[in-house]
């Protein structure tokens, strides 16, 4: 079978060049336009979720003062905030946005392998967002079951949105999974099969590795959510009893029996835990590249960073029941899941050490992206340490469903990925738009966000130790919670409002800089990786002009002794500049077999 790799059939490659405004910007098959569509929509729904969180904070901080939301809409806000942030914002932005933009550029490809499917992906994603948002406008409003959607309460009369809201939520999730699958197949296949000459897997930037493993996690984990969504839809619409046991509601027995609510929890968390790493791994990758570039040093322990990503990805499938300690399980299972959970700390800590060691003795340039990247190391260590508490069964039980848990997961998978997203948005903004952003505004944005984050979440740990339960509309008065807790709550709310408002700086910055930013040039940060070596900035459709690039080194040749500059782009041959790359692989001599 004569079969030619994609990177070698370049001359015959057909590009579907757009002919009109509509095919260029709406039904575009260009991965860069699709990335911006994905990212823009994800950020837009993220803003909706941010506003919902501020509404909740105002209620919690000043329960008698603001009359913005009632208990029902409080629960609806909790649910929609959680689901939007985790799935529709973080997953879509990191994989659909950054994945689409960076994978083909970093792999030296012209586009994704299947651009049409890629285009479908973003529009099906848009459809899922429309379905989700429409639940705000149906009778009963969106579901208020909490983002975990645990049955049987999702469909019981006491839960807001138990009729239409939950149906739309499940439908929207199913549609989202279809969109994700279409995009995800593209990302994985492109990384595997469409790398340019000389680009081995072990020369890929860590961004690509993070997105690669995260997408594989998504392709294997989202099926569990799809199946649980289908089963729950059947329970609600057809009256089946997959998850519904015999329930008596206000004295009337419901028409269900013999179902298992625990089954839903298992299916949900079999998706839900890998989902944490679907969000975290791309962030790990992006932050590695930002840190290395701005520290003018190669990433410390590249190979171990790759293996850590793979190990975390693998482990993430065998820890899911640590979300279910309070649901009750055999102590041996608790032991198993606690052990696997704590083992994840090993590769994760390895990554943190390597980030810090990348900074060690680096020629650090404190640009705005670097601020956010270093801020991430702080918040991530913080969130990771509280994860060690919650991974242990005996410590988790009393802390479960308190603000300690809220603080933990917001630090580790809320704030940390968001800081990386800002780092990455500022870092790649010059490539996407061709202009620089306003540095001062970006730094102000960083300080308010970063310090505000600590003002919000540090006190929450303490509230959790006091035993303040989460998901409560109002605390009322209890014997075990001192009244001073309410003062903390008010302070948290003020900090949250300031942080929320500070995000306006970000939007002003990126829109103002589109016109008024100074011209960035092709490679303003002096970055070695391939996406900064495109002939045009922003890159044109097809990315590479007449010929695909050839890669001679890894993406981290910074401050190499004897080189002319403090960085050497990946496409500069070893005969021209020295390299620090451990792997000796010369595409001009041996095109398909690494010399190990």
């Amino acid at each position: 079978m004569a079969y030619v790799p994609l990177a070698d059939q370049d001359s015959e490659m057909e590009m579907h060049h757009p002919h009109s405004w509509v095919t260029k910007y709406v039904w575009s098959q260009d991965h860069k336009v699709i990335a911006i569509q994905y990212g823009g929509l994800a950020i837009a729904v993220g803003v909706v979720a941010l506003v919902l969180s501020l509404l909740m904070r105002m209620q919690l901080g000043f329960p008698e003062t603001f009359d913005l939301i009632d208990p029902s809409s409080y629960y609806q806000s909790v649910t929609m905030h959680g689901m939007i942030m985790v799935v529709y914002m973080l997953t879509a932005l990191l994989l659909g946005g950054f994945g689409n933009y960076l994978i083909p550029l970093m792999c030296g490809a012209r586009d994704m392998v299947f651009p049409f499917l890629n285009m479908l992906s973003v529009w099906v994603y848009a459809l899922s967002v429309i379905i989700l948002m429409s639940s705000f406008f149906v009778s009963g409003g969106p579901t208020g079951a909490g983002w975990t959607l645990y049955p049987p309460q999702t469909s019981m009369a006491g839960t807001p949105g138990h009729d239409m809201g939950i149906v739309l939520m499940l439908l929207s999730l199913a549609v989202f999974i279809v969109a994700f699958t279409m995009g995800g197949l593209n990302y994985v296949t492109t990384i595997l099969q469409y790398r340019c000459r000389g680009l081995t897997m072990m020369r890929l930037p860590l961004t690509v590795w993070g997105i690669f493993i995260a997408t594989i996690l998504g392709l294997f984990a989202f099926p569990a959510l799809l199946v649980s969504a289908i089963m729950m839809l059947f329970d609600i619409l057809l009256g089946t009893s997959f998850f519904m046991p015999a329930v008596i509601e206000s004295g009337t027995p419901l028409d269900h029996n013999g179902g298992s609510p625990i089954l839903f929890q298992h299916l949900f968390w079999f998706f839900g835990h890998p989902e944490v790493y679907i969000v975290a791994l791309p962030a790990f990758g992006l932050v590695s590249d930002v840190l290395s570039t701005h520290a003018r040093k190669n990433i410390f322990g590249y190979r171990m960073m790759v293996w850590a990503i793979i190990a975390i990805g693998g482990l993430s499938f065998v820890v899911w029941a640590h979300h279910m300690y309070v649901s009750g399980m055999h102590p041996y299972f608790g032991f198993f899941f606690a052990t696997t959970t704590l083992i994840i700390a090993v590769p994760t800590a390895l990554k943190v050490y390597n980030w810090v060691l990348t900074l060690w003795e680096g020629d650090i340039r404190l640009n705005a992206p670097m601020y956010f990247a270093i801020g991430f190391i702080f918040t991530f260590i913080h969130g990771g340490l509280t994860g060690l508490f919650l991974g242990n069964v005996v410590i988790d039980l009393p802390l479960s469903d308190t603000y300690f848990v809220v603080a933990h997961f917001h630090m580790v998978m809320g704030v940390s990925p968001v800081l990386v997203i800002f780092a990455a948005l500022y870092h790649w903004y010059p490539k996407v738009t061709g202009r620089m952003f306003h540095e001062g505004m970006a730094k102000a944005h960083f300080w308010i966000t970063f310090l505000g984050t600590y003002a919000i979440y540090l006190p929450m740990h303490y509230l959790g130790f006091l035993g303040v339960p989460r998901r409560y509309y109002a605390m009322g008065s209890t014997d075990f919670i001192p009244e001073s807790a309410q003062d903390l709550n008010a302070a948290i709310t003020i900090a949250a409002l300031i942080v929320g408002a500070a995000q306006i700086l970000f939007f002003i910055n990126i829109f103002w800089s589109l016109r008024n930013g100074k011209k960035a040039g092709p490679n303003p940060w002096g970055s070695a990786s391939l996406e900064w070596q495109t002939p045009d900035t922003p890159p044109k459709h097809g990315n590479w002009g007449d010929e695909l690039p050839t890669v001679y080194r890894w993406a981290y040749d910074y401050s190499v002794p004897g080189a002319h500059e403090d960085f050497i782009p990946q496409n500069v041959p070893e005969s021209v500049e020295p390299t620090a790359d451990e792997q000796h692989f010369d595409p001009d001599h041996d095109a398909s077999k690494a010399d190990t």
Partner: protein
Amino acid sequence: MSEAAISGSNSTLVDDWSADKQAYHVPWGKAMMWIFLVSDTFIFTCFLTGYLHVRLSTTEPWPLQSEIFALSFGGDPIPLILIALMTFILITSSGTMALAVNFGYRRDKVKTFWFMVATAALGASFVGMQVFEWSKLILEEGVRPWTNPFGATQFGSVFFMITGFHGLHVTVGVIYLLTVAFKVKNGHYDKKGYEIVEIAGLYWHFVDLVWVFIFAFFYLL
């Protein structure tokens, strides 16, 4: 290209993954189909695991499949006869599909076309028998997703959900096969090559394989 890559047999996993350009020596479409099928495997695994779980959690006895899925042709009812026939048809269709792939690589357009059409026809007859099975259970026995006269309500729910999801896969497969078959006939792949027949075949074999598991776990267990 090195010798190892050309001969295929000598190239190891490590060689493939440490090479540039691509990790597998296959067209991208084939790699993508494989990844999709692994993802789809997780869907069916979740369905079957969910089924086994509710079968344990339900409070009522699980019906005897051999009695429900029995047909009598004049004499005593023969257990699972229809399901056995359906399984036989689907597995036969895998054989015709394999022949189509073979003739595709030999660039024998006519034979490829006819074997693909035969595969699609066998698939369609499978779906037809499923329709018969469904209508018999719904109309004659009164089985519904939310109830059935034989015992545990989950029996009906699981039956319609899992066989329905699989039947959907078969139906999509029939449409996919026919689309590719007519493109083969029109010479659409003369330049691009006939890997697409094998890619469609991968999907078809997967659907067959899933049926084997549904047959074993739902009908026999």
